[in-house]
């Protein structure tokens, strides 16, 4: 199979087309601009729809309409734009509509900057908008994984009738790496017999809706959603453990941060420190199992993020006080070096 050298944002766009994405709606923002530019060029040639919306609010509601009409649909943005989409994401979850939402995160709060960050973790994994809901969150750490997870994102969305977020960052989006677009066997997915396509001979109209004025009905609906979320938690959590076999200390990092953390782990290994890396691939559901696996032998954990500490809460919830959890983070678009993380690993060992 052919390897091609591509920027993360462009590879993501190509993978979406290959995964059967028929419609894309988005509003320009750095650092994800190559993605819509690629789709603007390719979608019309390949039977798809590209439309630049008047805002992220409009874009996410166009996603709602197209998802409700039964097609595969995607939008992408970066942090401030994702904030604007939150009402729409809440509606998409309430109405159980499948779609893929890409957040190439940048520094915040407010207008922040356009450098890489991971400070939208809370927003992504805790719902972000109003109401009792969850979105599946995928966090690739290489351009190849980005491509592979795009296919999975569309499948998971259709399988569970739920939005799926791909959480990247400015580095991943801009980075050039070789990728292979693997042909994948079509997954068995439930038919979209709920879609509003026009009745077309159907007896009863289909309705896409998140309104349940009767609280008894809304509780029923939310409990149904909750059951679905529990199923996702049981089946879809993903992670990778590197250098884990004999490890006594663990660094936890996701996305681009995991790449840097891995370099730090290798440095520590050279100095004889028995340290491994836990890399969550799904941020929701959070891969608690990874911790169950290593807790019997783990002396301490170090969470590294491009934020001042968000995922670390999930690490603590997973460790449940059974070992110390340390944190190291840079913020505002600053990225730690492997050396910086290496120093933190040494500190962790010294403290525990």
């Amino acid at each position: 199979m052919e390897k091609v050298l591509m920027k993360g944002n462009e590879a993501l766009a190509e993978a979406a087309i290959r995964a059967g994405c028929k419609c894309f709606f988005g509003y320009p923002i750095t650092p994800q601009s190559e993605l819509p530019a690629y789709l603007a060029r390719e979608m019309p040639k390949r039977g798809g729809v590209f439309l630049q919306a008047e805002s992220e609010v409009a874009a996410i509601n166009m996603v709602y309409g197209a998802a409700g009409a039964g097609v595969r649909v995607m939008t992408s943005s970066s942090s401030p734009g994702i904030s604007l989409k939150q009402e729409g994401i809440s509606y998409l979850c309430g109405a159980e509509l499948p779609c893929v939402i890409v957040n190439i995160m940048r520094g915040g709060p407010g207008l922040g900057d356009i450098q890489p960050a991971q400070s939208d973790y809370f927003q992504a994994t805790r719902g972000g908008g109003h109401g009792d809901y969850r979105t599946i969150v995928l966090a690739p750490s290489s351009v190849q994984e980005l491509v592979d997870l795009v296919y999975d994102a569309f499948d998971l969305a259709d399988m569970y009738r739920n939005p799926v977020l791909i959480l990247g960052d400015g580095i991943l989006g801009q980075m050039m790496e070789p990728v292979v677009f693997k042909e994948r066997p079509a997954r068995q997915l439930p038919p979209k017999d709920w879609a509003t396509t026009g009745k077309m001979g159907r007896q009863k109209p289909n309705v896409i809706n998140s309104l349940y004025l009767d609280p008894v009905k809304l509780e029923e609906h939310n409990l149904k959603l909750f059951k679905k979320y529990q199923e996702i938690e049981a089946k879809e959590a993903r992670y990778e453990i590197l250098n884990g076999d004999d490890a006594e200390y663990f660094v936890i990092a996701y996305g681009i941060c995991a790449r840097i953390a891995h370099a730090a782990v290798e440095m520590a290994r050279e100095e004889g420190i028995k340290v491994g890396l836990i890399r969550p691939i799904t941020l929701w559901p959070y891969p608690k199992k990874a911790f169950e696996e290593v807790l019997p032998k783990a002396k301490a954990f170090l969470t590294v993020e491009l934020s001042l500490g968000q995922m670390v809460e999930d690490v603590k919830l997973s460790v449940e006080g059974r070992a110390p959890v340390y944190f190291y983070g840079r913020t505002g678009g600053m990225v730690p070096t492997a050396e910086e993380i290496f120093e933190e690993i040494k500190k962790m060992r010294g403290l525990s």
Partner: protein
Amino acid sequence: MKVVFERPKSLQATKTHYCPGCGHGVIHRLVAEVMDELGIQDKTIGVAPVGCAVLAYNYFDCDMQQAAHGRAPAVATGIKRALPDRVVFTYQGDGDLAAIGTAEIVHAAARGENITVIFVNNAIYGMTGGQMAPTTLVGQKTETSPYGRDPQIAGYPIRVCEMLATLDGPSFLARAELTDVKNINKTKSYIKKAFEMQLSGKGFSLVEILSPCPTNWGMKPKDAVDWVKNEMVKVFPPGVFKEPKEG
């Protein structure tokens, strides 16, 4: 026996929640009659707003989506782009369309999005209990303009048809009043024209309907109709604001 009046096929057999004398029910019926007459019930997808008409999906007998407040034109855009051979309409109130959803309606119109918009202007926020709307008349008393809308504080009503008529995208823009038989028939003819525009691919069409809200205007149904006739039409003159040139 000859049937002279019956429920349009495109309306469901159910009770509505609309107040006595409310315009929404009549407008639903007109839209449904047009769907029947054009034979498009089976390929139509409607978009319900947030407002008194939020439950429109329980009344129209066609596929429906319920949209977030003001976003119906964006939702309709998503549906229409995904399924270009279907008929897509939005049904929106004045708060929905001319306040929170102003960006979406203006840009759908500017794109010439091939959808039809039924815009119910009752000069008030009905559903939330009678607050000032973007279309509330100067001097009109509402919950949030208790001394009457004062332009010094709250500015002036928005004339949607006139505003959208400055754009190149729309094919058909018209305003009608839901007051007497003649004008109700005219409303229906505009609605039909609007759907025909979409069917012939001419792009964005919108019908604004001046519609009574007796409940939140604090009037009897008959007085509410008179208020549309005597006061609303002065600020919102009925007529056709844009239509394709003949030939």
